[in-house]
């Protein structure tokens, strides 16, 4: 059993909307130095679980603790110094520039132009500081939001935790790999990362642990090699696939070798 004082954990989470139970006793534990990928079919409850973990949604039942402390007792300001979040689909009202959006991730009252520039360079947007956010492409906007989350993480007490909800949904191939590298970098520095991902190959590359959700329950959890098996993929998605194992990089799926069951 891991030490609860060094983990960001949701345990026994039930979350319901009228007429539907979205999470049914789901658990998730993020640990320092590790990347956890959340996978599962549409409507499995991946984003909901991440939102419960972030504190954005309050579960009907269950507990969320960061390093042993109940997040509800922490309050938004102190929680924001423990974890950073990249939400799905952020729409910015008002004509903010790229740097101004990233600066929203800074701790209150801080001004750190060099840190903002550094975060933008990390997501390949070094020259974009003064551009209006609204004029960027979807992928560029998503990278600005990643830079904002990284900026918040850098201001956390200790290495902190990073929650990413579909961080690659608008990104091209090269920048999907950039996200993998950034997440690994955070983990190497001692941070804990959770990422909701649809691309199983990306999940296999990014994750130390994969948690597969189906119908609001954890259907499988383990290393990529343990979770990404023909049987689990068939159970999760109703797709027959033959999963290969690359000698150095772990399991992979070839889209050409898949079919809907």
């Amino acid at each position: 059993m891991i030490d609860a004082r060094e983990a960001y954990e949701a345990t026994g989470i039930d979350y319901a909307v009228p007429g539907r139970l979205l999470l049914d006793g789901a658990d998730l534990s993020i640990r320092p130095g590790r990347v956890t990928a959340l996978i599962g079919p549409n409507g499995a409850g991946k984003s909901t679980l991440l939102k419960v973990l972030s504190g954005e949604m309050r579960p009907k039942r269950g507990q969320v603790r960061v390093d042993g402390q109940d997040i509800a007792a922490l309050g938004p300001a102190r929680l924001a110094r423990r974890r950073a979040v990249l939400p799905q689909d952020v729409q910015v009202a008002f004509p903010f520039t790229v740097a101004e959006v990233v600066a929203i991730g800074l701790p209150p009252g801080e001004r750190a132009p060099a840190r903002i520039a550094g975060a933008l360079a990390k997501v390949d947007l070094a020259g974009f500081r003064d551009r209006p956010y609204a004029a960027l492409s979807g992928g560029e906007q998503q990278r600005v939001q990643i830079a904002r989350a990284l900026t918040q993480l850098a201001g956390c007490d200790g290495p902190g935790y990073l929650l990413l909800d579909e961080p690659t949904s608008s990104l091209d191939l090269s920048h999907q790999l950039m996200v993998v590298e950034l997440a690994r970098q955070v983990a190497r520095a001692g941070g804990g990362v959770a990422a909701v991902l649809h691309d199983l190959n990306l999940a296999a590359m990014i994750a130390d642990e994969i948690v597969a959700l189906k119908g609001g329950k954890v259907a499988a959890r383990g290393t990529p090699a343990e979770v990404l098996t023909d049987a689990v993929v068939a159970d999760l998605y109703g797709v027959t696939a033959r999963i290969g194992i690359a000698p150095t990089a772990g399991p992979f799926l070839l889209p050409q070798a898949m079919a809907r069951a």
Partner: protein
Amino acid sequence: MLEAVAVGTVPERTARERRARLGLAACAALAAAAALASLAIGPVTIPVEHVLAILWRAMGGSVVAPEIGLRESVVVLDIRLPRTLMGLMVGAATATAGAVMQGIFRNPLADPGLIGVSSGAALAAVLWIVLGASLTAALPAAGLPAFLGEFGLPAAAFAGALLVTMVLHVVATREGRTSVATLLFAGIAFGAMAGAGTGILVFIASDQQLRDLTFWTMGSLGGATWAKLAAATPFVLVLLALAPPLARALDALALGEAAAFHVGVDVERSKRLAIAGVAAGAGAAVAAAGVIGFVGLVVPHLLRLLIGPGHRLLLPASALAGGALLLGADLVARTIAAPAELPLGIVTAAIGAPFFLWLLLRRRAELFG
């Protein structure tokens, strides 16, 4: 590429930040100039150096200026100064309330005048004028000083504005997103309610009250006195004191309520403070000068184009520019048809309504989307 990125030298402030600071200074200068013009211009034109000398002397300074007569001094200090300060106050309150409300609703069209907050304040104020008179009259009998009655009007307007703002928030916001259409329709509904209420009250109002009611519907600084100024000021100060600490929350809310929570904003608390502040400011403005439309829409919008949307500078700049714009409009209102005085609300509507249409035209895509 990803490790240890060499950033080079990063300037402490961007060009935009420097321009924003300059813009804020310009707004302050504009407000000061408008105030001086408002004190100097009128049926009797008083030279600016005389105005300055009179103000200096009133503050206890010694002036060697024998040519300044008592008449000039009375005009400046007793007639124009309360009106000028009231104009600054009303303009600052209206524009700041607009900026804060737009930040909370994440929409540049959320002007207290357009979405019914001012209507709610006006209806409550009218109710107070017609029905509160007996309450005020009872004050001396209850052993309370009569000037407390002056606070009844802004307090009633505040209550009306607060009620409408809270209802709007419940009606138009769902899961952190605000429906502009609902906001504007609610504004129509509140406007109609205020109209109906005022209409009913007209029947039971006395002649004096009727004259006061007309003033409400048009908006004017004509009734400004030191007593009214003293009654409105605390309410405006509530808004001006609440707004700056909300700057970071309002910036973060531009990313949505979820993202604002993620970066540490207590969203519900921020919204409650903002709503209380907006109601206090918009209520006091309506109590002091009636319904003056569009200032809360035009000023923050133009300033966002000029100095950017960051609320740390936008809020103080809105207060200053709002005061300047209102005094400018008041100057037009009282000089264009002199010796008669145009209602101030007509002047701001004449400037603001075309601006509103232009804004709608520019934002057509998202309004239809």
